[in-house]
Structures are given as C-alpha cells and as structure tokens.
C-alpha cells in the first residue's frame, strides 16, 4: 500500500517544482489557522447582528457573563483604542457602536473555556435593536439617507460626488463618446453576489505576550496591513502586534479584510490567556466580504466591417455596508469595461454605492469579472448582428502593445490578445459523445432527467484581461531579507524572509525557486512569514505576488551575493522592490495623469463546449480549452493549477454560485444552499501558455491567478447562449432563464 517518500525536488525558475509544503499537507501535519492550540487557551465567539440595518438601543451582557466557563464578554466600550478600522478607509466599527449596517456585523465578543460555552453565552448577550429601513436597492441608494454621513471615501482624490451613499464614482471619457457606427447593440447585464468560499474557515490564535502586546497566528493575505489596522484599535504600538502567518486554507480576496485579528487580540489582552477563534461555515459566509454584484448597461457601436467605433458603459456596483476595497473595484470595472479591444471613443461611468446588503470587496478578478461578462456578451451580440464569426470579430479588434486604452494609457508591456485568441480558437474540442450514455455524462447527471432528448450542444468563446499589481498611484512594494553564509564544507546556504502570504497559490515555491536561481545553490530555506522579521510584502492579491516576491527576492539575493563576494563574510540584508510607478486617474475625465494607471496587463481566451437540456434548463459543461498570457511560467505545474482552479470559480459564478438575500439578510449561508462546483461539474480543462516576457518584470513574469476567473464566467455563458439561442444576461444562469420562464 505504500510508496517510499521521495526526496523533495525543488527547481529553479521555469522548472516544474514540487510544492515545498506538499508533504505536510498530504499527511495532515500542516498547521492551518484553525489547527492551533496553546496551553490555557480560551475560545472566542462573535455575537453578530441578526438585522441588516438597525439602531442599537442597548446591549446587556450581564447574563452572558454569568454563564459557565465564560471569561469575558466585550462590546465596543471595551475596544481599547480607535473604534473604527478599515482596509483603506476607516469606516468600520471593530464592534458595532450605535448602529448595525449589515446582517452579521460583529456586535460583541465572548471568551469561554469550551467553544460551545462561548456559543451559548453569545446567545445570552441581549442586544436591543430598533429596526431602520434597510437600503437594499443599489439603484435607489443615492437617493436615500446616508449610511455614512461623514463620507469616508471622499476627499481622497476621487471625483467629488455629492450624492448620499456614493463609495466612488468614476467617469472615463475618451475620444468622442458620441461617435456613431453603422450598427449598435446594447444590453443590460446582471451579476449576482459571489462568495470566495475558501475551505479553511476564518480562524486564528491570539497569544498575549504579558507586556501589553500580542502575537496573532492567522490566515491572511497581507500580514503588515493587518498589523497596521489592528494596533491602533488595540491602543498599542504597531511593533506590539506581531502577525504570524498560520496555514491558509484558500483566500481568493476574502482574507484581505480583517476577520478575527482584532477581536481575538482584544479577548486575549483582556483575559491574559491565548484565545482561539474559528468561524463556522455559516459565520464565514456572513462574516466576510463578497464579490460585488453588478448591473452593467452597455452599448457597442461598430462599423459594418465589425470595427468598434464607440463603447458606452454604465456600471453599478453594490458595495454593501462598508468601503473595504470598493474604490479600487470601481476603477477596475471601469478600466476593463471595454474589454481587450481597441476602442477610440468611449464613455464609461462606474459607480459603487453603500447599501445594507452584504459588504463586498476583493474577490479573484476584482471588478474585471463583472465587466468581462458584459463586454463578451456584447461582442457575441455584435457578431450576431453583423453576421461575423465571433472569433474573427474579436481578432479584428484585439488590443496590442502600443495601443491606447480608454484611460489614455499606452500599453507599454506585452499584451498578446490576438495570439491568445488565435491559439485558443485552434484548440480542438472533443467530438460530441454518442447516445445513449451514462446519465452522469448528460445535463442533470445522476438525477437521470434525460436520455438525450432536448439536449443541445453549444460552443462559446470569450476573451478577458486584467491588471497585475496595485494601481492608481498606490505605493506597491515587497520586502525580502536574505541571510547568507558558507557552511563548513564551503557551500552557500541561505535563509530567506518574505512576508508574502502563501495562500495555496504557490508563492513559497516562487520565493525558493528565485533564491535558488540567483544564488545557484539548493540550500535555501524560507523562514516563517511574520511582521517582526521583515518589511511588508504587500498583499497576496491582484495577481501580484509572483512578480513582486520574485522581484524582491531577486534583488536581495543579488545584493547579498555581491556583498558576500566582496567581504567574504556572512550577510544579512533586506531589500525592497517596487514595480514601475503608477499614477491616479484624473477624477473628472478618467484619463491617466502619468504614464500608467495600471502597471501591466494579462489576458486569456477561453473556448467552452456545453450541453444544455433546453426543456429542463439543466446544463453540463463538457470541455474547456484556454490559452493564457503569463509572461513567464515560474512553475508550470502551479500555473496550470491556477488556471484550472480559477476556471472552476468562474464556472461556479456562471452556473450556480450566488449569495441570496432578502431585505439584506443572507438566506443561503451554507454549502447545502450555496453551491460550488464539484468533481461532477468540472470538465477537463486544456490549457496552453503564451510566454512572452514582460519587460518590466523580474524574469518576465506576469501574474496568473485572476485571468482564468475573469474569462471563464463569460465563456461558459457564451456556450449556453450558443446552445439555447437565449440572451442569458444574468449570472448565475438559472434553469428558468434557459427555459425562458
């Protein structure tokens, strides 16, 4: 039954390398944030609002405090420092003060000896609410009473929009927005709320250091920004909060915002005991931000030959109760609204509003997913209106290096849109399978709903693109520290510190491969990621971590090696890498104010074959082929893994994934009711890479995590459209939409 454990083979840049954490992950030894334990540890639990919008009349903790095993019950009164925090804007109470703005908002904290005691005590925290009318329709939010009268996102260089509940509004005007073509197609597209649904629930362990500080072992995407948000609220110096990366069970944007970091620390400092908090699945669904739901109105005007003349788009995003990263999502949705196409004339209006719906922020694809769904539906519509092959239409308009984006930015790096289209169109899908077949291979699966009657096959195509790295003037950097010495037998040995969060994407290997390549030694270890040993790595977000970590580690290794050669002695140095500078968009015109608003772009094309039971509205995706622009693949196997996994998430949004709400309350916070693709839903994914080195990036790498998610929702729906002949302007596509009810 058993095979001998093989030696771990770890390669250099460009080689398939086995994950450095693969063995502990397959044996169960890898310590995730929910696996931690400390002597004398208490369990924390969060009391959350059952209302989407209410005034808090009073909070009575007295009964909860007398419950068995309870050590502490804390409310906003007990927040030692600043009462508000936020990823970019401090608009979110650590614990609700006088008002709750969303279903699931944290109101109080309990620490007890057993998790069940903590849960039961939490039920005994009496919060008296006076219900307020929830703002649930984003279309009307700008006419309703403000949820944040102090307008936390204004005065930050964005367009000054006086209306209540505006998180950000952005207008991009390019060329002559009134330019007319020979034909025009338009549509209204809707995207539901998607959840990151990472499998490892939010969790962590906060351990007081006995001197007023705290060590927090947590699953996160950006250690230093957690520290910088947490310390002021805890009323301590940043150095007194040490964030240590615990094993991360997936992230996908959902761990950019804080979860238990401040809460666990408050309980730990208050009780002077280690405190562990583990969210349940239900709590995870209500406790973190989601992908913004969107409504997108688009009009495409083109010549008879199919050249785009003018694109006009209005994007409305529902940001939910707090700002999170919504301002950047607003800008991304606008930047990519016209698709990876040459568009000389454009008018793009992008608006994000506050509501009492679930708060939204970062999720893989970050604004580009919603836009891609709309622009690709439009391209299919245009192709049909002009009777041009949809692939040809896309090729005809494909953006390329040197072209000007609607923001006025000239694409300085590589963007091989035509190449990914051409190569993807050349991938051969399998022949239709014969009937009869096993019901598993038909729409409806083991439900045994058809033997093939009513089943139609459709082939869809889509192209998408997205920025890599943080944009619009953000000071985006990553630090790496290298300690170098010679072992007794004269070999170079290195220890690398980098706070880049390994969230499953494989950045640990990128760091190791980079150091091995630069130092030409296999003897490299990666130290645990923590805020106390090295500067910030920035976030494992925006498909940036490979580029940034490789950049920082390369720089540090080169300098360390040079110094070692010069001095002959041990070296310990830290270097900070920055990608080329970006500048903000002009708040009135949405045009670049410097050379670039986004650092670089990556694109992907995807072809999808689907079968649809048009009588029952059931679907089966049969095959997916994709070609992605990756710059350079650091670890080809990991790149494929990102493509396959990213595609699955986009397929989920196309077919099944949606957080449902009633008056702002989430009604499907479980894996029973919020479905993600299973082994029976995912078809084989044939992927090819375009490796065209990005000039500004270390080794020519780009990022690879997001493009597959950006393009796959659009591509899957395109296939369903081809099979059904229906418009399917909303995702996830429901059986009713297919049948036409």
């Amino acid at each position, binding site marked *: 039954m058993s095979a001998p454990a093989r030696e771990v083979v770890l390669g250099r840049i460009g080689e398939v390398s086995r994950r450095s954490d693969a063995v502990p992950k397959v*044996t169960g030894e890898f310590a995730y944030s929910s696996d931690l334990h400390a002597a004398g540890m208490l369990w924390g639990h969060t009391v959350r609002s059952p209302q989407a919008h209410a005034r808090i009349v009073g909070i009575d903790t007295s009964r909860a405090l007398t419950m068995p095993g309870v050590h502490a019950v804390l409310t906003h009164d007990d927040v030692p420092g600043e009462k508000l925090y936020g990823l970019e804007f401090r608009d979110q109470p650590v614990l609700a003060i006088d008002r709750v703005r969303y279903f699931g908002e944290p109101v109080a904290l309990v620490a007890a000896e*057993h998790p069940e005691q903590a849960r039961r005590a939490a039920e005994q925290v009496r919060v008296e609410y006076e219900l307020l009318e929830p703002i649930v329709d984003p279309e009307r939010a700008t006419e309703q009473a403000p949820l944040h009268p102090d307008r936390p996102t204004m005065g930050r260089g964005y367009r000054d929009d006086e209306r209540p509940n505006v998180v950000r509004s952005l207008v991009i005007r390019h060329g002559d927005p009134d330019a007319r073509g020979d034909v025009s197609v338009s549509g209204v597209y809707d995207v539901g709320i998607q959840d990151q649904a990472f499998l*490892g629930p939010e969790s962590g362990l906060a351990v007081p250091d006995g001197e007023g500080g705290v060590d927090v072992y947590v699953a996160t995407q950006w250690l230093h920004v957690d520290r910088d948000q947490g310390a002021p609220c805890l009323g301590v110096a940043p150095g007194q909060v040490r964030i240590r990366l615990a094993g991360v069970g997936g992230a996908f944007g959902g761990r950019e915002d804080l979860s238990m970091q401040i809460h666990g620390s408050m309980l730990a400092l208050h009780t002077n005991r280690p405190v562990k908090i583990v969210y349940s699945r239900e709590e995870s669904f209500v406790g973190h931000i989601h992908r913004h739901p969107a409504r997108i109105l688009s009009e495409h005007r083109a010549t008879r030959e199919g050249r785009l003349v003018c694109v006009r788009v209005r994007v409305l995003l529902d940001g939910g109760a707090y700002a999170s990263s919504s301002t950047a999502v607003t800008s991304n949705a606008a930047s990519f609204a016209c698709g990876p196409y040459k568009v000389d004339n454009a008018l793009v209006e992008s608006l994000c509003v506050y509501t009492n719906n679930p708060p939204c922020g970062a999720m893989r694809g970050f604004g580009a997913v919603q836009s891609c769904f709309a622009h690709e539906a439009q391209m299919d519509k245009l192709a049909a209106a002009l009777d041009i092959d949809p692939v040809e239409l896309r090729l005809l308009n494909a953006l390329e290096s040197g072209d000007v984006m609607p923001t006025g930015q000239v694409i300085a790096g590589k963007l091989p849109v035509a190449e990914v289209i051409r190569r993807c169109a050349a991938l051969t899908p399998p022949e239709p399978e014969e009937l009869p077949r096993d019901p598993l291979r038909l729409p409806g699966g083991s439900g045994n709903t058809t033997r093939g009657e009513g089943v139609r096959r459709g082939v869809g195509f889509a192209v998408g693109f997205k920025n890599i790295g943080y944009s619009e003037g953000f000071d985006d950097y990553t630090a790496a520290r290298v300690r170098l010495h010679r072992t007794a037998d004269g070999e170079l040995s290195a220890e690398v510190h980098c706070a880049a969060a390994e969230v*499953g994407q494989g950045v640990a290997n990128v760091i190791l491969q980079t150091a091995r390549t630069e130092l030409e030694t296999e003897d490299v270890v990666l130290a645990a990621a923590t805020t106390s040993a090295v500067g910030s790595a920035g976030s494992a977000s925006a498909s940036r971590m490979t580029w940034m970590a490789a950049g920082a580690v390369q720089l540090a290794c080169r300098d360390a090696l040079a110094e070692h050669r010069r001095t002959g002695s041990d070296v310990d140095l830290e270097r900070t890498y920055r990608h080329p500078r970006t500048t903000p968009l002009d708040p009135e015109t949405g045009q670049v104010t410097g050379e670039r608003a986004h650092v670089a772009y990556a694109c992907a094309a995807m072809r999808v074959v689907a079968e649809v039971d048009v009588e029952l509205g059931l679907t089966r995706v049969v095959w997916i082929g994709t070609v992605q622009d990756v710059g350079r693949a650091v670890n080809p196997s990991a790149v494929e893994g990102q493509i396959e996994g990213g595609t699955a998430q986009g397929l989920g949004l196309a077919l099944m994934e949606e957080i449902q709400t009633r008056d702002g309350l989430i009604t499907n916070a479980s894996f029973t009711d919020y479905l993600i693709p299973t*082994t029976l839903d995912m078809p084989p994914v044939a992927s090819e890479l375009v490796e065209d080195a990005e000039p500004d990036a270390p080794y020519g790498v780009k990022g690879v995590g997001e493009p597959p998610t950006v393009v796959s929702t659009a591509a899957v729906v395109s296939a369903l459209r081809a099979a059904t002949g229906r418009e399917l302007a909303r995702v996830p596509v429901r059986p009713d939409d297919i049948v036409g009810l």
Partner: protein
Amino acid sequence: MNIELRVNGEPRELEVWEGESLLFALRERLGLPGSKNACEQGECGSCSVMLDGKLVCSCLVLAAQAQGHDVVTVEGLAEDGNLHRVQEAFAETGAVQCGFCTPGFVVATADLLARNADPSEDELREALSGNLCRCTGYAKIFDAVRLAASR
C-alpha cells in the same frame, strides 16, 4: 463523559462533552487536526475518516458514537514513515494547493482504491463528488487518483 476507541491503531481514552463531534474530539482532544473542519455540516468531505473501515464525515458522527469503534484518520495512512501511495500521488501531481481539502480527498481516495482498484473516469468523479475543493478545479486531483491507481 468518558469514551474509549481505537484511533490509527492505538487505544485512546478521552473525556468529551456529549455534544461534541468525532471531528472535534480528534482535532481538539486527541491532537489530530489533520481531519479538517471546512463546513461541519456534512457537505464538504474535508473531515473524512474511516470508521470501522467505512468512509464517514467525522463532523456528522458524535464522539460518543465512536465509543468502542475503530477510527483511521489521514494521520494514520502513512506506514513505517512512508507516505501512502495516495499521499505520494497527491504531492507529486500538484493536486495540493491550499491543501485544506487534501486530507479528506486522500482518505476518500484511499477508500475508493481499496474498493475499486481501477476506477473509470465516471466512477472516480462520482466517488469523490462529496469532497469539495475550491482551489484546484479537480483536474490535478484526478491525475493523482489515476497515478495512485496505476501503482
């Protein structure tokens, strides 16, 4: 209450609260956190263990129900310090990303291959359809299952 059971071949005795799941007891009381807690409602398979040779979701079994029974967790699959062939295959094919689903998949795959040494594509998809993975899109997990089956 006090219970006795065998875990990975060892007799264990422990004190549990009546409402605790087997998953909780394994993770928090027996120091075996390899079985994972992704949903604790029987929907994801991350907590899969063998109970008397049958694949179960340990989040749905009360610890008290395991009294007198035999439990094998992911920690119990390796033999003499050698990875189980399924573990080896998962590590080798890139079937692991964040890895949170991995212990459940490894246990479920070991069970599948013990029952069906050479599963067809449809059989393996169906057998593993109770295990969710959010990272990989499953392709490399299927590669791992096929590789393990071939050895």
